[in-house]
């Protein structure tokens, strides 16, 4: 649990950095993300080489924003099993040969497995980059601007705020349980209801206190907290360049272009 709390805290620190990407308008970042995600997942199932071009977005972003590689690796490890599951099933069920490298046959299934894993890793990386350069408060301000319902945005903000608090409470509960239950492993089923139920009652009490604090500070008299950030020319350029490149990489297989060039040279 401490790991999760630390994880949020680390992301907060990184997201409050100062780089070109950090300063970019959150709306522009969301548009770039949408374009990148949709072009990346739209590739044919067996496309392995073409998506490689998208690595350039990732490497440039990491470099510009000083994003620690460890952060990305942790997130990629979480996402890997699901992608691998889909990929491995393709490996098993699609044994049609695609081409040979010497004596080794590369099947369509192998290609689609590799493609799936590559694209999964790309998609996760885009989100890691977004969250590493955008504090949640700026994202939620942008959500308000695009008219996402206020209740949803506020629930999102406050849930995020209280995750650490509740995790701390749960950590305390389970630690004291384990010390007195003399167990190194999880909570026994018959006690899980009590612990989780007790945690919920504490949650309800806390929510009541938070509600009182909000009332004392005038809650109910206004809609969301507006956060101004002007759209600059650089934001427009960034969106244009990223979108155009993403679409270009989708249409033109860049490795194939290099392959032809290499053919010519050789």
């Amino acid at each position, binding site marked *: 649990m401490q790991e999760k709390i630390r994880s949020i805290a680390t992301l907060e620190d990184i997201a409050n950095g100062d780089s070109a990407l950090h300063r970019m308008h959150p709306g522009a970042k969301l548009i770039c993300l949408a374009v990148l995600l949709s072009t990346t997942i739209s590739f044919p199932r067996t496309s392995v080489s073409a998506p490689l071009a998208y690595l350039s977005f990732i490497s440039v972003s990491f470099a510009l924003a000083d994003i620690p590689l460890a952060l990305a690796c942790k997130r990629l490890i979480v996402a890997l099993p699901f992608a691998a599951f889909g990929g491995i099933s393709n490996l098993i069920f699609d044994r049609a040969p695609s081409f040979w490298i010497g004596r080794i046959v590369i099947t369509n299934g192998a290609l689609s497995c590799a493609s799936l894993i590559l694209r999964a890793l790309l998609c996760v990386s885009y989100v890691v980059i977004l969250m590493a350069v955008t504090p949640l*408060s700026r994202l939620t301000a942008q959500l308000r601007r695009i008219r996402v319902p206020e209740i949803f945005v506020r629930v999102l903000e406050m849930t995020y705020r*209280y995750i*650490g608090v509740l995790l701390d409470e749960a950590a305390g509960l389970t630690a004291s349980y384990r010390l007195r239950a003399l167990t190194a492993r999880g909570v026994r089923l018959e006690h899980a209801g009590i612990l989780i139920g007790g945690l919920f009652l504490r949650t309800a009490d*806390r929510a009541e206190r*938070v509600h*009182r604090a909000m009332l004392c*500070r005038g809650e109910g008299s206004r809609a969301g907290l507006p956060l101004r950030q002007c759209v600059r020319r650089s934001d427009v350029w960034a969106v244009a360049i990223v979108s155009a490149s993403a679409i270009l990489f989708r249409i033109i297989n860049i490795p194939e272009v290099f392959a032809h060039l290499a053919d010519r040279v050789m």
Partner: protein
Amino acid sequence: MLEVREITVIYPGGAKAVDGVSFRVNDGASVALAGSNGAGKTTLLLALVGLLPLKAGSVRANDVELSRFTLAQIRRTIGLVFQNPDDSLFMPRVLDDVMFGPVNLGLSEPQARERAMETLVSLGVERLAERSPLRLSGGEKRMAGLAAVLAMRPSILLLDEPTAFLDPKSRRRLADALIRLPQTKLIATHDLSFAAAICNDAILLKNGALLANGACSALFSDAALMESCDLE
């Protein structure tokens, strides 16, 4: 000025949480509301800002009587600093929390931001503005919670166990900050040395009823009285 007359607050089960309490806090004065755990201090404070209904009695803050029609006005005049700062810091960043009240008062975003920063600077904690409350120490949360209330410019300040969760150094810092504040203050606490450092007068509560009312020096040095209140 805060004037409380014969107020009674009832628990859901019917028992009296506050029983016929009356007192007055003059403009600019600092008064301690002392009592052991369960004496009714928190309940009393919640009732003063209309968060709990009054069974009997009245509350007047700067000539405005507390009623369901004057809740907004009362809450502009009286600021309540909660015991657990995690309960009152509910926004993603400290600055957002401190701006929350001013925005609700009708200030524009730049005005609210300016007022929030002024308040943080006055408490010497402007460095906390962009930080998440999740990462703050107990003392820092306490100051951020105080700033969130002060940004509404209340003329009367209620504080509920302000030294809870604080180490000695943070207690001293908080005491210094409170002494400098010009607001009328009512401080609920069982930390008598803290109360004596800030307040001239004290009100003693026991089982929801007023036991004594007078100068801190006189009350706190009365051993028998302190014993009867389960205070030391």
